């Protein structure tokens, strides 16, 4: 390897004399096994143990004598398409106002259990953690089970009659009713709403996006006369300049990372085959973490950065405030890169002011960017901040007499939610369409129970000419009616929404494709080349001074896990570790190291390795909330970050009622706010898996190189074969002499390998949730995660590096000798934490061909299969945990408790509804057994059986795992290396392949591809 980086997972590791790091390096389990609690007298001794053990054995034997009577109830009339045991897939679409995607839903015996992207669709076909987890949100016991009037259950018929009479009364009195909805992006829904307004002219339709995209929409509208968002195809650009746009998570509807990843793997012939990605930002975002160069700037500086890029590019003179040498250098680099790439460059921005967004459009037009698409812009967000603010002021002034909400929860997402709810309480008429009795529903007189999107019909136009359909994948679980159906009834129509969609599509949308085929495909695409004409030709330049006050910039963001908070009662998402901080079950204030030092804020690990953090008071004129602090490397000094989507309280279990509601600070729907911060007493307990499961400080975990080195130098320089010492002679680890194992011939039959490309993986975590859904991974709750008992079969390790910012330290590190010197060296790296480079590394069971876990199992519960899988037989396991102890990758998970049907773990597996998501092909593990990734053996076995049934060989690409299937970025490639034609074999034989901890000779079947950085040095 060319350079030796030192990777570290948290500040604690930099601490010279940290006991915890040392402790974790010595121990796999940070705590002793809990045996009995309470006072000394009650401590069970050996005799008690024997008594209990004897009794339970006898009890088990007696119970075992009588098997339970199990009943089977077949269909009376079995539907043609349903065969018990065979999965059916339906193409449908999610559009919940925050996530928009064409998806495929796997159903078993009529129950949706798994979601993946609909790869046949032309666009918007990616999934993320939230979309993958949304299947569980349907099986939520806190859902509303029928319509209600003033808290009382009522039949739909009566409900509709009384709503109609109220609406007619208001209409005859000409009192204004506001219809506040999410962005539907649905042609037929728009039609229905306009018919509804025709019937009741006193109704005004206002669209409200909980996370505002108003400035980008306004800018587009000002420039081209259409309310839409420009679309970008990053696969067509080799220079990406992003100014505060977190496009890998959910910037402007997301779905961008798959395009980005297509240009991230270079080939040796062409330097430009790998794109250059420069990110200017304040918070450490997922996108920033994946950028080649990440530049820190505060929000006001970011505007001038954009402006400066624009002016420099168009050869105008920048006359704004000085940016300082650091930013100036990167602005210059950005301009040079754009000029060099020409059409192949693209500039995007997440700044929420109209002027900046207009500048972005002008830059992309100026460079005639290939990636920039305005002929088919995104229509997924329609909300307007000014319209919404008007509505709220009208509510205050009493101009509005009634409100109907649908798909939104303003009682939670508005900054002045309490005031809003008080106003709604006083209204003559209030109707809420909701899946839950949430904050808004509780204040409304009429609450219409709506179905989950997997139980609903729908049509969408996400992009101009790109149409999508959604269809029910299950019969409604409760007595629900979807918004459109109710609106149709209220308008006096006899049609249902399905008929309306079908008629509308047949007469207005479909050209040459049948309705049935479109429904089966889930999408319809008709391309019309209509590039809009620019109507505004000049951009306004910002002219705000760069402030230097005591106030900090609070930057509100959405997490990859919870997003806008719609699914906050989804336990999978709550336990999903944030890719950057790796904290579960919380939101927190991210603070730069500098500010933390100034304010005396601390993060520290307690004796069992769990993370604690100081509390601060975040306040502005109106609000003040107590928030725990995470010190975040890469956070721009002078800024702090706080995630939206937490702190919801209604219609969810107490366990989920966590975090703080950051929407309180979302004034004027601007993500940047001025706040004051003061430290307050007390420490917060985080459930962070950051210091857990360390790789014992060994290197050979991450390998990376630079683009120049990759292109110019031989593999032996940047990815050398690992050498080990035998009889004091350096020998290749792959040679037979150093192998202490008798090799098994694996050249016949299938042999599975999983390749993970560190260049393409952006750490989004869709695979983590997909794995949850496929493998029935339990949720253990915050307290257990804090004790490092998380059950994720695949985790995405995030490592910060110190490279690039302190060049001098690199040489110092290379010349480090001995552990004590290493420690003193690493303690000098504190400055590196200011803006580190980040690597994401998904780690699941490595399925070692020479697995250390297999040899230590006293009962042979884990053994090796001919196909390369390391197999875990749960029913054989007695729970010694030797295997977990001996696993160098720390990927085995122990069931400390019974996580299903146990009131102590009151998550989805503790109720009948929540258990409907369980995959019937995979066992639900019980207490006391070890579990781990099986390489989705149920999926490979199914593929094999399908081939056998048809009497054919398995085709390449047929073998899949849940994680590889959910990876839209194609970072994970799975397949049979004994198939000479397979993609995985080509990948495996490639130069970039390496194996984690190869020197210990485990020969893993999960392989990694060396990360290549296109970092530009200044």
């Amino acid at each position, binding site marked *: 390897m060319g350079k030796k980086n030192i990777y570290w997972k948290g500040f604690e590791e930099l601490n010279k004399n940290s006991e915890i790091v040392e402790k974790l390096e010595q121990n796999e389990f940070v705590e002793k096994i809990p045996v009995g609690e309470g006072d000394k007298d009650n401590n069970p001794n050996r005799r008690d143990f024997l008594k209990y053990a004897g009794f339970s054995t006898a009890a088990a*034997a007696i119970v*075992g*004598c009588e*098997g339970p*009577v*199990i*009943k*089977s*109830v*077949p*269909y*009376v*009339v*079995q539907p043609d398409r349903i*065969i*018990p*045991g*065979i999965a059916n897939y339906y193409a449908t679409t999610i559009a919940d106002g925050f996530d928009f995607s064409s998806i495929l839903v796997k159903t078993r015996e009529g129950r949706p259990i798994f979601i993946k992207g609909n790869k046949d669709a032309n666009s918007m076909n990616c999934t993320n953690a939230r979309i993958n987890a949304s299947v569980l949100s349907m099986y939520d016991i806190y859902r509303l089970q029928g319509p209600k009037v003033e808290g009382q259950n009522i039949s739909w018929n009566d409900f509709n009659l009384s709503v109609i009479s109220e609406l007619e009364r208001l209409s005859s009195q000409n009192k204004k009713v506001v219809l506040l909805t999410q962005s539907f992006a649905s042609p037929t829904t728009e039609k229905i709403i306009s018919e509804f307004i025709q019937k009741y002219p006193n109704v005004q339709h206002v669209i409200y996006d909980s996370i505002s995209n108003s400035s980008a929409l306004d800018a587009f509208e000002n420039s081209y006369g259409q309310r839409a968002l420009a679309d970008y195809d990053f696969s067509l650009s080799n220079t990406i300049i992003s100014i505060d746009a977190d496009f890998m998570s959910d910037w402007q509807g997301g779905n961008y990372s798959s395009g980005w990843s297509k240009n991230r793997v270079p080939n040796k012939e062409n330097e430009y085959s790998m794109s250059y990605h420069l990110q200017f930002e304040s918070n450490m975002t997922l996108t920033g973490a994946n950028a080649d160069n990440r530049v820190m700037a505060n929000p006001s500086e970011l505007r001038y950065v954009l402006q400066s890029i624009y002016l420099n590019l168009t050869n105008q003179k920048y006359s704004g405030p000085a940016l300082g040498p650091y930013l100036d250098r990167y602005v210059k680099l950005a301009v040079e890169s754009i000029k060099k790439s020409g059409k192949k460059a693209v500039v995007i921005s997440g700044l929420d002011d109209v002027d900046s967004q207009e500048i972005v459009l002008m830059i992309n037009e100026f460079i005639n960017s290939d990636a920039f698409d305005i002929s088919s812009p995104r229509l997924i967000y329609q909300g307007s901040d000014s319209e919404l603010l008007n509505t709220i002021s009208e509510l205050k002034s009493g101009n509005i007499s009634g409100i109907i909400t649908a798909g939104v929860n303003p009682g939670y997402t508005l900054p002045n939610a309490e005031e809003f709810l008080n106003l709604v309480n006083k209204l003559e008429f209030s109707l809420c369409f909701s899946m839950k009795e949430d904050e808004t529903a509780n204040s409304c007189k009429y609450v219409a129970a709506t179905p989950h999107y997997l139980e609903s019909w729908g049509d969408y136009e996400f992009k101009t000419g790109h149409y999508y359909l959604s269809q029910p994948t299950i019969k409604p679980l409760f007595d629900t009616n979807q918004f459109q159906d109710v609106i149709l009834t209220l308008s006096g129509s006899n049609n249902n929404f399905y008929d309306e969609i079908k008629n509308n599509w047949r007469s207005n949308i479909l050209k040459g494709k049948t309705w049935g085929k479109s429904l089966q495909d889930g999408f319809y695409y008709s391309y019309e080349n209509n590039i809009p004409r620019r109507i505004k030709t000049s951009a306004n330049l910002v002219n705000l001074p760069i402030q230097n006050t005591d106030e900090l910039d609070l930057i509100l963001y959405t997490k990859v896990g919870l997003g806008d908070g719609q699914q906050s009662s989804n336990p999978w998402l709550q336990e999903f570790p944030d890719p950057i901080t790796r904290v579960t079950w919380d939101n927190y204030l991210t603070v730069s190291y500098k500010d933390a030092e100034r304010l005396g804020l601390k993060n520290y690990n307690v004796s069992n390795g769990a993370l604690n953090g100081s509390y601060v008071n975040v306040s502005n004129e109106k609000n003040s909330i107590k928030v725990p602090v995470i010190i975040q490397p890469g956070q721009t000094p002078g800024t702090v970050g706080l995630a939206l989507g937490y702190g919801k309280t209604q219609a969810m279990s107490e366990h989920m009622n966590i975090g703080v509601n950051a929407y309180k600070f979302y004034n004027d729907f601007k993500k940047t706010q001025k706040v004051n911060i003061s430290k307050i007493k007390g420490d917060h307990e985080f459930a962070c898996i950051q210091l857990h499961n360390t790789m014992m400080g060994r290197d050979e975990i991450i390998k990376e190189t630079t683009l120049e080195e990759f292109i110019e130098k031989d593999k032996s320089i940047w990815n050398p074969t690992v050498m080990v010492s035998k009889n004091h002679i350096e020998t290749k680890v792959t040679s037979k002499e150093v192998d202490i194992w008798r090799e098994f*011939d694996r*050249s*016949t*039959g299938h042999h599975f390998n999983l390749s993970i490309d560190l260049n393409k993986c952006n750490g989004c975590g869709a695979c983590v949730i997909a794995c949850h859904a496929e493998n029935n991974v339990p949720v253990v709750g915050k307290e257990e995660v804090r004790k490092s008992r998380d059950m994720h079969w695949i985790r995405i390790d995030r490592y910060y590096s110190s490279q690039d910012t302190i060049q001098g330290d690199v040489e110092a590190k290379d010349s480090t000798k001995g552990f004590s010197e290493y420690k003193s060296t690493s303690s000098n790296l504190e400055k590196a934490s200011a803006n580190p480079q980040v690597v994401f590394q998904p780690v699941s069971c490595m399925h070692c061909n020479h697995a250390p876990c297999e040899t230590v199992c006293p009962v042979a*519960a884990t*053994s090796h*299969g*001919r*196909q390369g*899988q390391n*197999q*875990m*037989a*749960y*029913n*054989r396991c007695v729970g010694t945990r030797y295997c977990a102890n001996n696993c160098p990758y720390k990927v085995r998970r122990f069931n400390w408790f019974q996580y299903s049907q146990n009131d102590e773990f009151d998550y989805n597996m503790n109720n009948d509804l929540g258990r409907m998501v369980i995959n019937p*092909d*995979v*066992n*639900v593990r019980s207490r006391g057994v070890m579990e781990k990734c*099986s390489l989705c*053996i*149920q999926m490979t*076995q199914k593929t*094999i*059986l399908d*081939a*056998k*049934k048809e*009497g*054919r*060989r*398995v085709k390449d690409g047929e073998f899949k795992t849940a994680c590889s299937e959910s990876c839209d970025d194609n970072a994970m490639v799975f397949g049979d290396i004994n198939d000479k034609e397979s993609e995985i074999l080509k990948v495996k034989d490639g130069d970039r392949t390496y194996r984690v901890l190869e020197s210990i000779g485990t020969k893993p079947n999960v392989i990694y591809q060396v990360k290549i950085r296109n970092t530009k040095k200044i």
Partner: protein
Amino acid sequence: MLHLKRILLVTLLFPSLGLSQEADIQAGKALFNSNCAACHQLNRKAVGPALRGVTEKYDKEWLYSWIKNGTQMIKDGDPQAVAIWEEYNRAVMTNYPQFSNEQIDNILAYTNYTPPAPAPAVATAETVSQGSDISVNIILAVSIVIFTILIVMLFLVQRTLIKIANASGVKIEPEPKRNIRPLWKAVVENQFIMFVLVIGFLLSSAYFTYGYLMQIGIDQGYAPIQPIHYSHKIHAGANQIECKYCHSSARVSKHSGIPSLNVCMNCHEYIGEYNGEEDLENGYTKDFYTNEIKKLYNAVGWDEENQVYTGNTQPVKWIRIHNLPDFVYFNHAQHAQVAQIECQTCHGPVEEMEIMYQYSPLTMGWCIDCHRESNVDKDNEYYQKVHEELSKKYGVEQLTVAQLGGIECAKCHY
């Protein structure tokens, strides 16, 4: 046998019925079964009307022409023909121009013929069997009495002999009592014997306990009473219905599938009563079976009278017989479709089972034994390449499932 007997009885009981008439009825029955039974029943409505007493309703000549060419009659507007056509949803009866009047007469004779009540025959059968039971008991009782008398007599003889001896002055000396320790005491005091005995006891109790524990959870022979008495013997045995006609998902899915009730109705829409063999000893009479069919109708919501589905269904809660633990994955398609294993290999002689029971132990050892012995189908293209390579490597002609990795843990446990 039973059948023959009955005919014999019939001829005995009804001497007025001539032999020729009997032959007509038999010929009529044969014709009825092959031509009419698909749509007509004797005593109840099916697709067409019940045929018993049809000669009373219609003129014989009319019946001749109706059966030979009913369609024409409807066309011609014959009032009776049109009436019946209207009554049965305008379903036209198949024309039988090939029938002679004599054949039609035979069929009509069969429809008018009421079989005598089989009660007397049953009664005789019962008395005979009861009689044989009694005779055994009598023999027993008699022999017991005889033995008692013999014992009493022996006692009396002994007493008499002692009396004679006393009278003749013969002294019978009692045996001298020796002072020996009882056997049990000797055994208890002998440590070696005790040791061996204790070891023996422990070993044997361990053996039996192990044997007992090992059968826990193995429900071989489990034959629960089902909500509807479904006889595999009648369906798969007597009627030779292929297993996978009803259990069709065994071809494609992991479940063999309990057939949904609409599958039953494929046949039972026409078969409303049972006419096969009876098992009187167990109470499986025709009425019993017919009553079970009625249970099916009730569950599926079939109105027999009007031949329509009412929509009022009551799903049947069958009791599952073959229960594998959750941690075992078993796939029927793999075995029944890919490996072409006969269902009977694991499920036993289902075609002989009046009540379905678990034939095999379904233990892991049982599975593995089979996997070790069974060969894979090398003609299946999926297996071809790997079979070629592996069989060369192992030097065998035919690979077993085990050699291909069929006994690896995670092939069944995941």
